[in-house]
């Protein structure tokens, strides 16, 4: 089966229930330049995505750029099926892996090994794949005996190693990636980078949210500039980035991916 993503006129509204103070509401309203509104029942809602439509097929690599809170992560969550749209249609064909959160829902009380298993079970892996996943992560993360100790006592570097190994162990057809995975110095160890690139190359479709100009230029064939939940620019990464940054791109050698 060929991977495919169809997003048709999708909007996502966040109701905010816990902002109950009216003065807070007014402040937020004033600050957020019209993206906050009220629905019929007078709840405060954030329009996280507004009328987004696009189609991605096998081989497409989409980069999402935009300011914080522009809706990049929300779009990734919609594609992962975590948020369901209130308007429009989302169709995703193919296996999906979403690397949205460095902890990937890890439970810090469980040992590293138990977290690997749990993650595999959440992903619906069959028994033999679970064992393979465990071996793969164990080899890559190189945590030694710590793998059998609770994640709670890990150093932050060890958590990142485990999270990264786990996130990159499962090869999906569609890879949804938030920028965290590219952040941090430890990540840029040669080993981590080549593993990530293998994974990106192995995926049929990549949707990547990033603030990094280089990453988008290197890895993407198409870019969206998201602003206040709308796609305001859609095109080749060079063109969209130039307009987004408001300056010509730095003259640079294109690295090989």
């Amino acid at each position: 089966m060929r991977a495919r993503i169809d997003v048709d006129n999708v909007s996502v509204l966040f109701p905010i229930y816990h902002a109950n103070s009216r003065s807070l509401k007014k402040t937020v309203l004033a600050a957020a330049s019209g993206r906050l509104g009220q629905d019929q029942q007078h709840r405060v809602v954030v329009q996280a995505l507004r009328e987004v439509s696009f189609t991605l097929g096998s081989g497409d690599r989409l980069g999402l750029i935009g300011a914080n809170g522009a809706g990049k992560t929300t779009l990734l969550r919609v594609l992962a099926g975590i948020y369901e749209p209130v308007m429009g249609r989302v169709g995703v064909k193919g296996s999906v892996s979403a690397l949205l959160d460095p902890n990937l829902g890890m439970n810090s009380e469980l040992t590293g090994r138990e977290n690997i298993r749990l993650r595999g079970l959440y992903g619906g892996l069959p028994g033999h794949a679970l064992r393979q996943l465990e071996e793969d992560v164990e080899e890559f993360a190189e945590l030694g005996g710590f793998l059998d100790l609770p994640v709670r006592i890990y150093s932050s570097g060890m958590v990142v190693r485990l999270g990264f190994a786990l996130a990159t162990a499962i090869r999906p057809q569609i890879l949804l990636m938030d920028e965290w995975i590219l952040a941090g110095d430890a990540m840029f160890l040669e080993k981590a980078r080549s593993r990530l690139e293998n994974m990106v190359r192995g995926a049929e479709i990549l949707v990547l949210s990033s603030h990094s100009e280089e990453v988008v230029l290197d890895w993407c064939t198409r870019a969206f500039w998201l602003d206040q939940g709308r796609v305001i620019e859609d095109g080749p990464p060079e063109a969209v980035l130039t307009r987004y940054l408001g300056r010509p791109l730095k003259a640079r050698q294109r690295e090989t991916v």
Partner: protein
Amino acid sequence: MEAAYPDKRTQLGATAPTRTRPSESHGGLQGPFSTRNGSSHFREEGLSLQMVAAGPQIGYARRRMSIALSQRPVAAPSPELELTADMSFPARLRLAIRDLRDGLALWRLGWILGWLDIRLRYRGSVLGPFWLTLSTAVMVGSLGVLYAKLFGMALQDYLPFMALSMVLWNTLSGLVADASGCFTQAEGVIRTVRLPFFLQPIRTVVRNALTLAHNVIVIVVVFTIFKIWPGISLILLLPAFAVWAIDGLLVCLLLGTVGARFRDVPPIIGSIMQVAFFLSPIIWKPDQVPGGAPFLPLNPFFSFIEVVRAPLLGTPLGWLTWFSVIGYSLVLAGITLLLFPRARGRLAFWV
């Protein structure tokens, strides 16, 4: 550097006796020079979590293997996702039913999660989940003797009743209390992976069933001491616990949804349950209310406890009690069926 890890682990093992954590006595706690491939497994794990732990690995050979391994990556299973925003009730009901079906298909995962919850709660404690047994035993022992005196009843009449009632009530109130947090507690997972929401009620019910299983020991001991044997009427427990399980799942769906939206629900439920404890015949016997017994089935807590308690104690069980249980179950199912489909799509935003 590498050799420092196992040292640390041995120390940990010493503070928490291995008896409560047998899983680690196999592969996990071995020193650096012990055999490789000791197998370690989760304790709950007759199930599926059997895992072969590679022993501590030092050196070059293993590292070379990692290159070989990464050549055959784990392929993710490929489901298809098709979501059309449709706010009509039938469309949302279809999605909700699919959620329930997919959740049931994952019952094994729900079972494992429930087990892990219990194990984590007591990780590192000497008795582990048997603390539950012990605290119930102390409670039943002390209150049983006191109230038998206060009510002027013979201990062999009162204590079995009280032990059974207490254990059942603890299960019921524990389940209801857990239910309101059943989705909010799983926030991390709900916002990371697409999973059927119904998995969380399954996990909550499994967790509480396991708690009950630990407390059953107290009942068995008390019944043995007072030589009570319910005999053939034990069969009646099957339909009773089936209803408990189904209603437990429904309560989790309903209260979990409401609790995710309104954060005041857990404390409200807490105070309701406290009142219900005193209003229901748990520490007092139904026949102590002169003339009031016919009205007891109006209290759902009484009915649900009585369908389990009566067969075990050999007291007659009126058809009215079962009628009440089924009636309340239908009401619960109806409300859940109206509410959960409407709220399901929003749950990920609420938690």
